């Protein structure tokens, strides 16, 4: 599904963020991206989302190359964004509508669904995320956990094939973290691909089957079974992960 070959990226042509990254992700995988701050996890997620383009190497999504030329094609770009959902680390940036209902309905309305279909999708999503009572609230005045759920709902409603979570557990209370863990397991069981960066290993047990570890030098230093990597305490300690 996702093929990344020899990809490198640097900010302002001076600050290296990704160095020679090779990655293959199959449909339905649940992958944890692990690494120290500034190792390139967020940059890789932006790249997979098509927000930034690789300087070297290639990125293929379902066999189609994601590059500037293809992304300038509105239809291609929109179809791609529909398939890849991104949950930002800071939920505030993702919420810009006047109430929660409109926020979640933003995507389906763009997809040309009639108001009845939109309503069904939004109602289903509100129930799935257990935020039914927030429907008329203003997104900006919600608590951190509620904002996170609404921002996830705004992505879920588009029914993407790939979910990308940028440190989703940050700043959430234990109950919301547990909810989020169960939610990720549920969508993965529904054959959705999950890619998630995290430092919060305690709350993501049982979600991921595979882990990709980034070094401070912006390269992948390990790619393998999540449990095996998480049990290698010496490796995690040496690389400043625990």
């Amino acid at each position: 599904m996702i093929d990344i070959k020899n990809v490198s990226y640097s900010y302002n042509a001076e600050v290296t963020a990704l160095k020679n990254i090779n990655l293959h992700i199959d449909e339905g995988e649940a992958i944890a991206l692990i690494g120290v701050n500034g190792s390139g996890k967020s940059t890789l997620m932006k790249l997979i989302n098509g927000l930034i383009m690789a300087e070297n190497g290639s990125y293929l999504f379902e066999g189609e190359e994601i590059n500037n030329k293809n992304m300038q094609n509105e239809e291609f770009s929109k179809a791609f964004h529909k398939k890849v959902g991104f949950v930002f680390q800071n939920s505030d940036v993702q919420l810009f509508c006047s109430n929660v209902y409109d926020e979640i309905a933003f995507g389906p309305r763009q997809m040309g669904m009639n108001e009845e279909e939109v309503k069904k999708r939004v109602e289903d999503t509100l129930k799935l995320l257990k935020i039914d009572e927030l429907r008329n609230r203003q997104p900006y005045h919600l608590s951190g956990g509620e904002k996170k759920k609404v921002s996830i709902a705004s992505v879920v409603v588009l029914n993407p094939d790939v979910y990308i979570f940028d440190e989703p557990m940050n700043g959430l209370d234990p109950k919301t973290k547990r909810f989020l863990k169960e939610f990720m397991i549920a969508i993965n069981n529904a054959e959705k691909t999950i890619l998630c960066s995290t430092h919060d290993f305690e709350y993501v047990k049982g979600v991921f089957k595979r882990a990709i570890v980034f070094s401070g030098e912006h390269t992948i230093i390990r790619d393998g079974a999540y449990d095996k990597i998480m049990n290698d305490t010496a490796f995690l300690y040496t690389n400043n992960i625990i």
Partner: protein
Amino acid sequence: MPEWLLKKDNYLPLKDKNAFINKSILSIFHVLTRFRQQAKHRTNKLEINALIKFISTLILIIFVSLTQSSTFVLIANVFMLMLINFLSINEIKYVLKVSSVVAIFTFIIFLPAIFLGYGNNTLMITLKVLVSVASVNILACTTEWNDLIISLKVFRVPDMFIFVLDITIKYIIILGEFSLNMVYALKLRSVGKNNNKSTALSGIVGTMFIKSKEMSEEMYGAMESRGFTGTYKVYKKFEFKLADYICIMFNIIFILIYFYFDRL
């Protein structure tokens, strides 16, 4: 789990014009890149402190503005070309681009004067503008904002004003990054036809306003908790090295050249 979530959507995007999102991303990204470059990569190859650079730039602009001698203006331009050589290629490109655009614009404005027989004056004003804009840009390329703002202190600008300027620049970057992420989020969710583009954009502007208000309140709270009582003192002192004294000497020579060509 709802049924629609268990199967793939057979979706073909509807046609719509969304160029404004990409344009917004590009323009915010451009501004942020410039601020970041200025914050991180400003070179000080001449190792002259910000205060001397600031005063030298002022002297250059004032005397170039006052002069009626085209020789003096030419000398100032040659001097500026020499200074540009110390910059990196990207900085040279930026300085030349900005200065040339402003100079060409000035020339176009004064174009009618050429037909009225004031060709020399037109050329001189254009060159004056070119050298002044180039000098300010060289100053901006080689000096950090913080140092530049603090150097205002020598002109008796109140410390509180300096503090406000300093904080403003910091928050332009923070809010700029926030707004960039908001436009990114809008782009990612704009998967079809949006009939209410203005609503989405006004939502972003509104959120930005609330966010900035919240951040200012948080910052005031943090300042109060650290004992802020409404007064602020800038403690930075500029060190003077050999390069600074050489620069002062050049300034004196520059002023003497002005008097030689213009007043004697």
